[in-house]
């Protein structure tokens, strides 16, 4: 597919709201353009946020806060770095970052796939609720804090307090873990977990990593919220 087939929007000359409105208007519109290219993002906030259609959006350059937030169905690829909150509360679809992502990448996301080819900083996957997050590099401290469900795959290292107070999410890390958060423990890699990791590697399209190189982390289920005696308190 050539560049010429894509609807191109230059954020140096087009207001962000106009771009996002055009993308939002495609929800329920089967005839509008499906392939988009966005140029000159220059760190703008909320680029391609709130999409709800089968679109393929490529962004040439670095984006600011909340890129592809609340994404549904669409495929968004950033050829650059992403600021804080990329794919925050994503519901479905695929968001892919060629460079690094800043804080709380994929926070509270319910579904879909977030792929980061570089590193993320702190709080990656905080309160994740079903999303799959695959990071080729390292992740920062307090990642997967209170993670509820979903899978976080990290090919590099993880920072301090990984998986603090987490629930049922699964974390796979290939490198070093600087420290586990409260109630997070290492768990055995059984065949189904190896299959899990193989599937994530395949989905993300990562080369040079093998499932058996990963270790699994999850909840020990020892915190107050896991005690049946406390159920009546809610």
């Amino acid at each position, binding site marked *: 597919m050539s560049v010429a087939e894509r609807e191109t929007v230059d954020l140096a000359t087009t207001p962000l709201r106009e771009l996002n409105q055009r993308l939002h208007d495609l929800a329920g519109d089967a005839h509008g353009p499906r392939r988009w290219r966005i140029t000159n993002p*220059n*760190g*703008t906030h909320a680029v391609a946020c709130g999409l709800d259609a089968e679109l393929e959006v490529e962004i040439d*350059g*670095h984006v*600011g*806060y909340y890129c592809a937030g609340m994404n549904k169905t669409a495929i968004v690829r950033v050829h650059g*770095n992403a*600021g*804080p909150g990329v794919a925050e509360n994503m519901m479905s679809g695929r968001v892919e970052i060629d460079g*690094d992502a*800043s*804080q709380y990448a994929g926070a509270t996301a319910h579904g879909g796939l977030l792929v980061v080819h570089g590193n993320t*900083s*702190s709080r990656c996957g905080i309160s994740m609720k079903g999303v799959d997050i695959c990071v080729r590099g390292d992740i*920062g*401290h307090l990642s997967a804090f209170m993670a509820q469900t979903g899978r976080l795959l990290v090919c590099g290292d993880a920072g301090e307090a990984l998986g603090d107070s987490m629930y049922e999410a699964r974390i796979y890390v290939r490198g070093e873990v600087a420290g586990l958060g409260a109630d997070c423990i290492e768990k055995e890699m059984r065949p189904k977990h190896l299959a899990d990791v193989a599937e994530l590697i395949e989905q993300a399209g990562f080369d040079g990593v093998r499932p058996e190189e990963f270790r699994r982390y999850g909840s020990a289920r020892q915190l107050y919220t896991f005690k049946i005696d406390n159920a009546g308190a809610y």
Partner: protein
Amino acid sequence: MCGIVGLFAKSPEIERDLGRHVAAMLGQMSDRGPDSAGVAIYREPVAAGFSKLVLQHPDLAHDWESLAADLGRMFGGEPSLERRGNHAVLVVAAEAAETEPFVRAHHPEVRVMSAGSVIEIYKETGRPEAFIEQFALAELSGTHALGHTRMATESKVTTEGSHPFSTGLDLCLVHNGSLSNHGPLRRLLQRRGIEFQSLNDTEVAAGYLTWRMREGADLRTAMEGCLEDLDGFYTFAVGSAEGFAVLRDPIACKPAVMAENDDWVAMASEYRAIAVLPGASTARSWEPSPATVYAWERERVA
């Protein structure tokens, strides 16, 4: 919120246009801090035995000439005087260690914004765009600069609550964040002879750095001391005659991004402030790690 920016020139072209570049960066951070703005720009070092003072008076028509004449009578020579907005830059024929205390003691009607041999601090309340205009920031050349746009949370919107804060001769601090132990720390520093002009939390961090360096710590050690002694959120940028340094607290929820190419080193709260620099899209950029001091100094630059 608040926005901070820093730019360190590695080429003569960037030095020549430093003010213009920093103005563009500051403009991008306007909506992070719409109530006040300021810069510390390092430029035109004075000769040995001289000092450069930047003073402020709220009245644009303030009689700076008679203050300059008073400094001339006290320290000899004819101090040079340049007005910039409601600030004045004076170059006086004596060391800053003498001239700054003299102004504080004999001219309490003016505020000392900065003192040293190379630093110039300008800051004022109001929209950053207006500040950039009033102080004709774009026309200044220099070797490096820090800038700040303020959204006040911990103290009043006043000139003395604006950033950068002077932390000693040729030193300054800008801050994005909020400190929670500034009350007890202010009282501790006051007992050790550090004076404060406002109830601002960042001024306490500035006073802390001043105190640590007065006690013999170098800049890096003093900054690392912040990790032990300051409680709260911060991304700090500290300027010195040689360069600047950046430090984020261990939790690091206040944003920061850095970038470097052959012509400059830049830091900012957000990438969009860096995107305005020439060659930004191909510069190496990264997010500084928590609890780590990043420093650039002129001696290290070829």
